């Protein structure tokens, strides 16, 4: 109890410190090794290693994303290469993953027919987010592919385009009217309702999708770096009794690593689920 209290207070102390480090205009990352360095925003902008200056410039995180893509393709290629009617162990796991998206997300919300129509988009979003999230806790990668705004933004735009497409296709000419001027509402209320609907449906949805995923991954990474950085500092740079704090920060780092696994799965689920909900709302819009 005493130990965890002191660890808590020390982690609070370092949280303040990290804030001050982040707020500082210049990061003394390459300073002397006897002081503690918190993680900085530069973590998410590692140096460019290939094609610098072109639109295909590549840094460590882009490479991690491509490894995730490769992992998805290889895993599902192996899993669906020879599918049997009576599944083996490997096929069962792949089926479980695909069925989770198909049954629990797509068909549950959209029904069999529309669920099948939008299944490729929803499945792609789920597994892309999941695999790129999970790299945040894989040793030697240690950063999520989704912790830079590109992937969350692109996927949010995909979701945005998809639900507008679904609505326009289902109710040609009436989708935007129904979305902005909901039927059954007294006319004078449109003064209030229409701006609210405009902002919530067509502005906030993609923004919240992007920021929810991005910030979860950014903060998760910063927390892990903070805990393991502090552990390193306590073990090798601190004196005497302070070395013991390292045990506490290490334990916290371990717990938060487990927590990050949960967050990775949960955010993938939430992103896929919200995309599906938006599609469902667009399809169900009243005439």
């Amino acid at each position: 109890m005493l130990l965890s209290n002191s660890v808590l207070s020390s982690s609070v102390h370092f949280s303040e410190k990290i804030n001050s480090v982040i707020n500082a205009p210049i990061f003394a990352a390459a300073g002397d090794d006897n002081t503690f360095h918190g993680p900085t925003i530069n973590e998410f902008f590692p140096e460019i290693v290939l094609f610098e200056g072109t639109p295909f410039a590549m840094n460590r995180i882009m490479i991690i994303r491509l490894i995730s893509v490769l992992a998805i393709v290889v895993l599902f290629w192996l899993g669906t290469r020879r599918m049997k009617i009576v599944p083996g162990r490997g096929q069962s796991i792949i089926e479980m993953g695909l069925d989770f998206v198909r049954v629990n997300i797509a068909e549950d919300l959209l029904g069999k027919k529309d669920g099948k129509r939008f299944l490729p988009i929803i499945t792609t979003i789920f597994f892309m987010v999941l695999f790129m999230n999970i790299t945040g806790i894989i040793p030697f990668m240690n950063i999520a592919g989704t912790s830079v705004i590109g992937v969350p933004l692109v996927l949010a735009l995909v979701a945005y385009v998809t639900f507008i497409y679904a609505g326009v296709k289902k109710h040609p000419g009436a989708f935007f009217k129904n979305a902005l001027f909901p039927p059954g509402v007294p006319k004078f209320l449109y003064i209030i309702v229409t701006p609210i609907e405009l902002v919530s449906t067509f502005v906030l949805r993609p923004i919240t999708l992007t920021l929810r995923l991005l910030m979860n991954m950014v903060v998760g990474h910063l927390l892990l770096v903070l805990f393991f950085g502090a552990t390193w500092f306590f073990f090798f740079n601190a004196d005497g009794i302070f070395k013991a704090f390292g045990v506490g920060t290490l334990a916290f780092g371990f717990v938060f690593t487990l927590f990050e696994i949960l967050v990775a799965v949960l955010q993938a689920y939430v992103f896929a689920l919200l995309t599906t909900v938006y599609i469902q709302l667009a399809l169900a819009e009243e005439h």
Partner: protein
Amino acid sequence: MIHALVRAAAEGEASPNPLIPELYDIVWSSVCFIIILVAFWKVFLPKMQKMLDERSAAIEGNIAKADEAQRDAEAALEQYTAQLADARQEAAAIRDQARVDGQRILAELKEQAATDAARITQSAQAQIEAERQAAVVSLRNEVGSLAIDLASGVIGESLSDDARATAVVDRFLADLEASEASNQAEKA
């Protein structure tokens, strides 16, 4: 933390803004998305769908097969039941026939026995009657001769004397016994 990031981002050129995407970031994100989308859309999900269709077809096929087996079994059971009923009926018929036959045989035997008994009784009675007739005839003969013998004896002797009378009777009886013995000796 978010405020810190945003503020840090806003503070100058030195730190990149995490909310403003770099061009290469967007490019690579799109490339990743398109690769995964095409892979799922054109390869993995169709394969999965095909397998699911095959699986449901197989399940339906098995159910149909099971139905057919069930129907066959029910037909066989019905057939066996019918055969069993036939056999029972046949057994009952045979039993009835046997009973009827038995009764008939019994009646015949009884009738025959009664006939035999009547016949035996009749012949016995006839024999008895014949013997009685013979006895009557022989008795009549013997009684006649006996009476004549006795009368001649009584007449041949004086019957005033008791001793004589007694002697006559004794002699008669002795003659009677002797004649009887001689009769028997003649018969023998």
